[in-house]
């Protein structure tokens, strides 16, 4: 069994490098060129090999830079976020709205069993996009960090502190070998003494604060919509409407009332809207 596995591994490792090299040698032999020309072709082949967008040769190790300064594993992790479900977050007058569309592939799936939106502490909510299993690890960690802060300092955690802690953790998976980066982006929404916060974190551990943002497959469509329509000091209902419109913009089908979830984070804390209220907000869309 172990030998088989090793053989399989070797096969996998060799596969991407083999065809290119073999093809190149074949060409050389067929052409019957001079040694010098062959040498130049070989070098050209090598350069092409390393410049390929797939990052061939530099994408097997997490902590290996490519010659042009890229970390391919981190970029691949970002790809898994780009394929993830679209989730939306936007600030309004009193807090932050988070909206996700769970995008259920079959009517046999029970929508309630899919989680994309998590309460982290009284005052913090997170939505995720990308690998759900990775997200759950990060969510667990975030929840523990919040309670550790309460135990250590007797106070709820500041949103920026939590964001930095989570990003430190994600970053460590881009610098040390032996594990892969998280294939997950987070939208972290919260309210604390310093005000209302909405952060986006990506698999590299980079973070940015937004007035209105999105992660996942429909990100650019949502951002376009927000850039033209988001205003400061919206009411809660107006913000939910705008968020839903933006999310709808990014989808091919219409919004499915069973799979849309809305959460509000304001001075009362985190609150996920119940199904009935969600339906009311969906009905207001034209």
């Amino acid at each position, binding site marked *: 069994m172990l030998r088989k596995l090793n053989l399989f591994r070797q096969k996998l490792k060799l596969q991407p490098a083999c065809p290119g090299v073999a093809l190149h040698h074949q060409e050389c032999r067929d052409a019957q060129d001079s040694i010098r020309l062959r040498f130049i072709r070989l070098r050209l082949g090598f350069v092409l090999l390393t410049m390929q967008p797939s990052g061939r040769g530099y994408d097997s190790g997490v902590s290996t830079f490519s010659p042009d300064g890229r970390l391919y594993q981190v970029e691949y992790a970002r790809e898994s976020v780009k394929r993830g479900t679209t989730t939306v977050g936007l600030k309004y007058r009193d807090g932050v709205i988070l909206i996700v569309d769970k995008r259920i592939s079959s009517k046999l799936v029970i929508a309630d069993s899919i989680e994309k939106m*998590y*309460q982290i*502490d009284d005052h913090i909510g997170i939505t995720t996009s990308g690998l759900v299993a990775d997200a759950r690890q990060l969510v667990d960690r975030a*929840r523990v960090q919040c*309670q*550790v802060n*309460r135990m250590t300092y*007797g106070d709820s955690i500041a949103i920026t502190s939590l964001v930095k802690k989570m990003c430190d953790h994600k970053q460590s998976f881009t610098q040390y070998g032996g594990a892969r980066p998280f294939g997950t982006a987070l939208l972290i929404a919260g309210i604390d003494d310093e005000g209302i916060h909405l952060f986006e974190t990506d698999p590299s551990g980079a973070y940015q604060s937004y007035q209105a943002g999105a992660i996942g497959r429909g990100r650019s469509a949502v951002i376009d919509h927000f850039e033209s329509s988001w205003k400061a000091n919206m009411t809660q209902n107006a913000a939910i409407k705008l968020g839903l419109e933006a999310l709808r913009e990014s989808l091919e089908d219409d919004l499915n009332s069973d799979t849309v979830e809305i959460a509000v984070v304001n001075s009362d804390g985190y609150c996920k809207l119940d199904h009935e209220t969600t339906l009311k907000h969906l009905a207001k869309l034209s």
Partner: protein
Amino acid sequence: MNDSMDVVKTGTSTIGITFDGGVVVGADHRATMGHFIANKNVQKVFKISDSVALTTAGLVGHAQSLSRTLTAELRLYELKHGTPMTVKGAATLTANILVGRPHYVQLLIVGVDDSGSSVYSIDSAGGSIPDVYCATGSGSPYMYGVLEDQFTEGMSVDEALRVAAKALLASAQRDAASGNGMDLVVITPGVGFNQLSEDEVSNLLSGI
């Protein structure tokens, strides 16, 4: 440690009573260092979740540390499982912590869950015993006198509050390490953790 004057101990009277549809939890306000009253307004009833209270007797440092840990654990449990920890769960968790690292405390874990209302008394080495009512601290013998006489099954919330207040009043009169007023809390499934205001407590006491 027993005779040390250096540490603040809550000589203490705390009480937990179950009644039909909820629990009443109470404690006095006094902290002592030997014969000295170190503080006249100490918190000994801690809200560790919406439906569970912790009362503490013993070393203040150990008690406060435990209350921080338990609050965090119960909150995490609720977030992870989507449902609050049961009273039995909280008591067992506390007992496990104390078995691993004994604290100089005597605790009550009191609360409500789907199985009804319950009181658990927990000793410093992690012994956990369920009961329908319980008293802890140096004032407990005086409180038990009241409880044995006045506790009945199926009391209303007002009756239970009255018995708790009477018991705490008795220990304040006779135990040198208890007194300086009291905290009273009612926990019911609908309302959750409801601590009586100072006015409500003094109203209750004036009727006794």
